[in-house]
C-alpha cells in the first residue's frame, strides 16, 4: 500500500540554495532514503545525496530530517504524521557541497590529530592475551560508523565555527577514550592532550551527541565524562597529583 508524502528538500550549493517542495509516492515500510531516491529517479534527476549501505552501517546518508540530525536510511516514513511535510536538509555544521551532500573533511583532519594506538615497544603479535573485561569499554566505541551526526549536532562547533580549530568533537573524544582505556596503550599524555589540544574542556555535557548516535553509543556517560574525570586526575586533583609524584606512576593500571 502506498501513500503520497510531502517533502521539502534543500537544493543548492555553498553560495545559494532554497527549500523545494515536492510530492512523491511512499510504499509501506520505506525509509526517507527510499523516497529521496524516488524523487531523484522521477523528479529531480540531479539531486545530490550521499549514501551507500542503506542499512545504517556505513554512516553515509547523514542529513537533517525535520531539523534533527539522522540517518535517512534509518528513518521510517511511517513515523511522520499523515499529511506532515518532511523537511530534509544537509548537515548544518559543515559546508555544503551540493544539495544534501556536505564536506565533512573537518572530521578527517581531526582524526589525523589524534595520536595513534601506542603499544609497548617490541610487543609482537600474539604475545599478549587480554581479558574481555579489559577491552569491553573500548569495544563500545568501536561501534562508531563515523556518520558524524554527533559532530553535526554538537553546539560547540555547530553554533561556533571559530571553535573548529580547537575542538575535536564527540566522535574523537570516544576515540581518545577508547585508546586511554585500552590496556595496551602506554601513551602517557593522552589525557593532557585531550584537554589542551582536542578541546575536551569545551564540552558542557549537554548530551546531544548521545541523543543522535544511531549506534546508541553512550558517548557522554561512557567516554566524555570518564575522560573529563581522568583529566581531573592529572590536572585538577592535587591529592592524586601528589600521589603520582610519590609513587612515580601516572595512574592506576
Amino acid at each position: 500500500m502506498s501513500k503520497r508524502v510531502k517533502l521539502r528538500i534543500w537544493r543548492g550549493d555553498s553560495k545559494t540554495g532554497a527549500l523545494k517542495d515536492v510530492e512523491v509516492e511512499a510504499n509501506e515500510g520505506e525509509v526517507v532514503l527510499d523516497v529521496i531516491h524516488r524523487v531523484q529517479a522521477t523528479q529531480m534527476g540531479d539531486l545530490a545525496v550521499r549514501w551507500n549501505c542503506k542499512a545504517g552501517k556505513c554512516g553515509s546518508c547523514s542529513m537533517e530530517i525535520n531539523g534533527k540530525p539522522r540517518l535517512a536510511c534509518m528513518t521510517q516514513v511511517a513515523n511522520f504524521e499523515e499529511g506532515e511535510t518532511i523537511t530534509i536538509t544537509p548537515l548544518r555544521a559543515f559546508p555544503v557541497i551540493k544539495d544534501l551532500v556536505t564536506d565533512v573533511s573537518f572530521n578527517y583532519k581531526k582524526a589525523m590529530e589524534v595520536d595513534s594506538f601506542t603499544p609497548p615497544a617490541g610487543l609482537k603479535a600474539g604475545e599478549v592475551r587480554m581479558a574481555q573485561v579489559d577491552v569491553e569499554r573500548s569495544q563500545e566505541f568501536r561501534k562508531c560508523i563515523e556518520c558524524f551526526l554527533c559532530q553535526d549536532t554538537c553546539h560547540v562547533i555547530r553554533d561556533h565555527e571559530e571553535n573548529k580549530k580547537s575542538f575535536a568533537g564527540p566522535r574523537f573524544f570516544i576515540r581518545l577514550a577508547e585508546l586511554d582505556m585500552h590496556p595496551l596503550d602506554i601513551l602517557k599524555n593522552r589525557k593532557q592532550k585531550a584537554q589542551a589540544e582536542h578541546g575536551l574542556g569545551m564540552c558542557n555535557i549537554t548530551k546531544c551527541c548521545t541523543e543522535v548516535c544511531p549506534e546508541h553509543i553512550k558517548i557522554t556517560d561512557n567516554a566524555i565524562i570518564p575522560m573529563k574525570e581522568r583529566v581531573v586526575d592529572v590536572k585538577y586533583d592535587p591529592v592524586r597529583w601528589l600521589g603520582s609524584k610519590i609513587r612515580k606512576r601516572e595512574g592506576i593500571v
Partner: protein
Amino acid sequence: MALLDSKVEETGVFSAGRALLTDKTLRTDRWWLQPLITFTVLILFVIYATFRAFENKNYFAEPLISPFYSPCLSTVCVEGAAHFGSPIGSITLFGLLISPALFILIFPLGFRMTCYYYRKAYYRSFWMSPPACAVAEPHKKYTGETRAPLILQNGHRWFFYAGLVLNIILTYDAIIAFKNEEGEWGHMSVGTLVLLANATLLWLYSASCHTCRHTLGGRLKTFSKHPIRYKAWTIVSKLNHYHPNFAWVSLFGVALTDLYVRQVASGAITNFYFF
C-alpha cells in the same frame, strides 16, 4: 519555492559555506518543553530553598531535624538541634545573624551545581547553550568549561566527598528519628520514614554519580587486575543509568522532608507515631 535570502553570519548555523537556511532550527517537535519544565522546577526549588535557608526557624522538632539545617553547627541553633556541637559559633554580617543553614547548604549546592547531570539540565534550560539539540544557541561566543568560572566544574569530586559526609550525617538523623519526643529509643513515626526515605534517595544520588563511578573503578586501565573494584564499577554503572532520576527525586525528597519538618516544628501538623 522562494529563493531564501542570504543570511550569512560569521559563525553558527549561518556561517559562510553552510546551507543557506533562514531558520535557527527546523525542528517541528516541542523541543522547548523540556527546558521550560526544567527551568520552572529548578526555579521553584531555588525560591523555596532560599526562603527556608533564611527563615532560620521551624527546622527542628525533637527528634526530627530538617536536612537544610543538618548538621546544625552554630550556637544559635535551637535547643537540641546541635547534635555535633557548635564549632562555628554565631556569625553576624551587617548586623544580621547568619542562618545556620547557610554554612551547610553550600556543600549540597556545590555538589548539585557541578553534577554532570545538572550541568546538562541548567546549561540547556537556563543558559540555552544549547536550549535543545540542533537548536541554535543565542550566544556569540563559547568557551565551555575551559576558563573561570566554569573551569571550577572540575572540582565536582570535592563536593562529592563532602556530600558523602552529609549523607552519613543525614543517615544518623534518620536513625535517631527512631526515638520519641522524650528521647527514648524504639519508636517510629511518619517523620522517621520521611527522614529514612530522604537519606536513601541521597545515597542513591551519590552512589550513581559519575565521579563515584570513576573513583571506584572507572579510572582503572585493567579491570581484570582489580576484580572487586570492577564489580563495584559494574554496580555503579547500572545505578549511573538512573542518575538523572535520582537527581530529581532526591531534590524533591530534600524539599519535601524539610517541608514536613517545618510543618511539625511550627505546630501545623502532628508527627504521627506508629509505635
